[in-house]
């Protein structure tokens, strides 16, 4: 199914340079009433024309959620969330009209200008056809609020047997796959936010790579939170069969808001024998203003299951946005010789709070995991690395290496490290090291004496500090991420 002209326009506006990310689009919304109850869930389910089993699954999740308590173990503080004061369903009715730039917070505009968006796919979305065989290409599945508006490159992908579509569509077209894998990695009752997501998720991405297929392009999705008071509950499911390979890119932006917005996504990855999944995220949602007003609450459950032997799941994330980040992309290493990786840069400034890390659960023999986490705190922010490495008795010869480094900029911020290391197999070898320091005066002096401004010097040092992670990012993201780091830290060095 080719995207129609209207959809292309919509997405074009979304990614358009002058449009940027800093204001809400005045689209007529189809909103469900505020609040959460079984009727709302039935409404979501019926609007999406879902089969009975999915509605039942949602209701079961909701019932589980009701019995759970919001977790309080993370090192984050926020006023209590009123879950009844949110819209759980919003679908755009009309395409957005153009808006004047005058309404945009100039601070935000300035930031985005500095960032630039090297979005190769912009031209594609606008309908410009690339010459045959030009590579690499990026396919975009844009989530405009809760309903996926457009998916491009469907035909190219379909030729190689790859399914890449909104999950709501997958429910209609490939119900057997969705039913088999949905909730198989993150069960409905896994945690408070995952249960909430399972009950009310509206859309997200679905990727299926069949046996032996190497996905011909990098898959990408741009999430965007738009409607006032709309919690976003994406659900992403990626399945790679034996010997398949996929690289998935996820980037996020959000318009400026005064109210805090809740975002509770669930991402599930399944890798069978010899399959590889690379999942990269650049997250720069609205972090709130200098005084900590507004900003996104990002409570995400991301987990990958290395089901097959020699499978590999690699998470790379650059987290600079959100008022609160609560996110632990994890790997369950079930298959023998499977590999889990986690590369993370988390930057917090002003009043941001990040509690992020990973879990590596070693179940199979000779499973290996690598964790490289870099935390940078500035302003009055708090940045916590929280990670678990667990080796179960059967994981003969398991291997883990963990490196966590924290950088503090300014004396009003906090940097914390909370690793859990649990080994129940003597042949496993686990190594963990963590350091905390500030940018050394010597390094700064060296750069300054060679004519770099203070901010450029800090940007350069910070990029060096994060190099191990940034080099794991696909090219499309690496440039953006480097700029993002420098821009995020602007003004925090004095």
């Amino acid at each position, binding site marked *: 199914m080719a995207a129609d002209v209207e959809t292309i326009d919509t997405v074009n506006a979304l990614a358009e340079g002058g449009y940027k990310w800093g204001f809400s689009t005045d689209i007529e919304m189809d909103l469900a009433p505020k609040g959460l109850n079984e009727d709302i869930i039935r409404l979501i389910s019926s609007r999406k024309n879902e089969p009975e089993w999915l509605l039942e699954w949602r209701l079961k999740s909701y019932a589980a959620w009701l019995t759970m308590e919001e977790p309080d*173990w993370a090192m984050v503080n926020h006023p209590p969330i009123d879950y009844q004061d949110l819209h759980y369903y919003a679908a755009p009715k009309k395409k957005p009209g153009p808006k004047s730039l005058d309404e945009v917070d100039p601070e935000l505009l300035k930031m985005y200008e500095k960032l630039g968006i090297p979005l190769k796919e912009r031209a594609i979305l606008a309908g410009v056809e690339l010459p045959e065989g030009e590579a690499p290409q990026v396919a975009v599945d844009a989530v405009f609020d809760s309903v996926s508006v457009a998916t491009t490159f469907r035909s190219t992908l379909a030729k190689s047997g790859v399914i890449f579509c909104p999950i709501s569509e997958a429910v209609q077209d490939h119900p057997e796959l969705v039913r088999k894998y949905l909730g198989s990695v993150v069960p409905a009752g896994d945690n408070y936010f995952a249960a909430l997501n399972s009950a009310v998720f509206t859309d997200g991405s679905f990727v299926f790579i069949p046996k032996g297929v190497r996905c011909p392009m990098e898959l990408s999705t741009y999430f965007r939170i738009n409607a006032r008071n709309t919690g976003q509950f994406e659900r992403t499911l990626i399945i790679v069969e034996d010997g398949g390979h996929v690289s998935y890119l996820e980037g996020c932006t959000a318009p400026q808001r005064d109210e805090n917005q809740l975002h509770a996504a669930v991402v599930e990855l399944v890798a069978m024998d010899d399959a590889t999944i690379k999942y990269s995220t650049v997250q720069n949602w609205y972090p709130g203003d200098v005084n900590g007003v507004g900003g996104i609450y990002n409570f995400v459950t991301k987990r990958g299951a290395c089901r097959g032997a020699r499978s590999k799941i690699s998470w790379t994330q650059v987290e600079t946005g959100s008022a609160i980040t609560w996110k632990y992309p994890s790997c369950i290493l079930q298959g023998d010789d499977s590999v889990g990786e986690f590369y993370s840069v988390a930057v917090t400034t002003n009043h941001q709070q990040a509690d992020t890390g990973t879990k590596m659960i070693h179940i199979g023999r000779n499973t290996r995991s690598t964790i490289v986490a870099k935390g940078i705190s500035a302003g009055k922010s708090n940045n916590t690395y929280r990670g678990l490495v667990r080796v179960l*008795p059967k994981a003969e010869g398991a291997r883990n290496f963990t490196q966590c480094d*924290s950088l*503090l*900029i*300014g*004396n*009003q*911020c*906090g*940097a*914390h*490290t*909370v*690793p*859990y*290391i*649990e*080994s*129940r*197999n*003597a*042949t*496993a*070898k*686990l*190594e*963990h*090291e*963590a*350091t*905390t*320091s*500030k940018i050394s005066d010597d390094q700064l002096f060296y750069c300054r004496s060679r004519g770099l401004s203070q901010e450029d010097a800090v940007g350069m040092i910070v990029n060096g500090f994060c190099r191990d992670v940034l080099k794991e990012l696909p090219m499309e993201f690496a440039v953006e991420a480097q700029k993002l780091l420098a821009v995020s830290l602007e003004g925090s060095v004095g």
Partner: protein
Amino acid sequence: MSAALKPTALQSSALAFLSRFEGLRARLPGDVAIRDEAAGILRSTGLPGPREEAWRYTHLRSLAEVEFNEPLTPVADCADLLSRIPDFDAPRLIFVDGRFRDDLSTVPSLAAVRVGGPAFGALAQPASEKLVALNTMLAEDGADISVPAGVDAGTVVLVSLGTDLHGRAVAFHPRHNISLGKGAKLTLVEIAVGDGVYLHNPVLSVAVSPEATMTHLRIQDESRSAFVLSTVYADVGEGGTYDSFLLALGGKLTRAEIHARLGGPNAIAHLNAAQLLADHQHADFTTIVSHDAPNCASRQTVKTVLSGKSRGVFQGKIEVARVAQKTDGYQMNQALLLSPDCEMDSKPQLEIYADDVKCSHGATVGELDAEQLFYLRSRGVPAAEARMMLVRAFLDEALEPITHEATRTAMEHAIALWWERQAA
């Protein structure tokens, strides 16, 4: 929590301790108000359970299954237990089942010692540590040792003997308090041995004045059936040093918790430990170092050797307050797993609010290096001996900073005995 619910084992156990307190309340020495407060805490919260973050790796279930009694007034000569205490040329204070035994002790001349009642001190936090609340509620006796300013009091040995006189489990909760005046020095060697089933729940507070140095060496070789749940509070003033080492070999279920606060600039704390575990032993070493002043340094080297089906736990937290600029914090935690059925859980933690700091921690878990073993074997060293050499080398890094010769010798002897027991 509804009163109609059936109490859990942990709740019942707390209730049993509480009812023991009710019975003893009128007879216990010292201020009863502080005990009542502690009892109130236990009554409302119970003993720590696995849902509490600080207790996620150490479950007190097996403790809750035992009924503990008040120790009887000890009359035995304890000769057998005493023979296990290494001979130090130093005054020693001997506690049997938590009660001071004048007839067995020699009192130091350079430090003032007061016994016959609990030495509560001012540092303990019964409100946040439930086992300290338990101790506060039931403490009967303890040593109050103070070293005057400028005095080097040499070595004092503090001995705890846990007896199995009547074949019934007893619980004792000694409460010690040590204070060092400005520039004072003291080496406290704590040795604990015992037989049979008992609960040893000591709390020891150490106040180190500016420029003073406290060396605290502990050998915990208690009964393999005993529960040992100890808490140490150390508060170090400007330029002072608290230098501690714990060798833990004994006990069935043990936890040694240390809260060290560096309260004045240039203070130093060393919290080192070695844990050697076998069979079904469970040992937990938990430390919290609070850097509350600039220019302080803390060092930790913790080594755990596990065999059999044992389980080792290390939780180490370094907290750096906003004022504590130029903090130097280092923590190394390593575990050696000698058998396929043991488990190590480690949680090193940094909580840092100051920017100009140098803090790091490292943790490793693994088995003996096959290449190192091969190296030794290929040079004709028998397998068992090669393993022992490597284990000893592994432990050496932790033992190295101990400068007190007699204690070090005693520790090495205890480790050698432990190894013989494993090899047999």
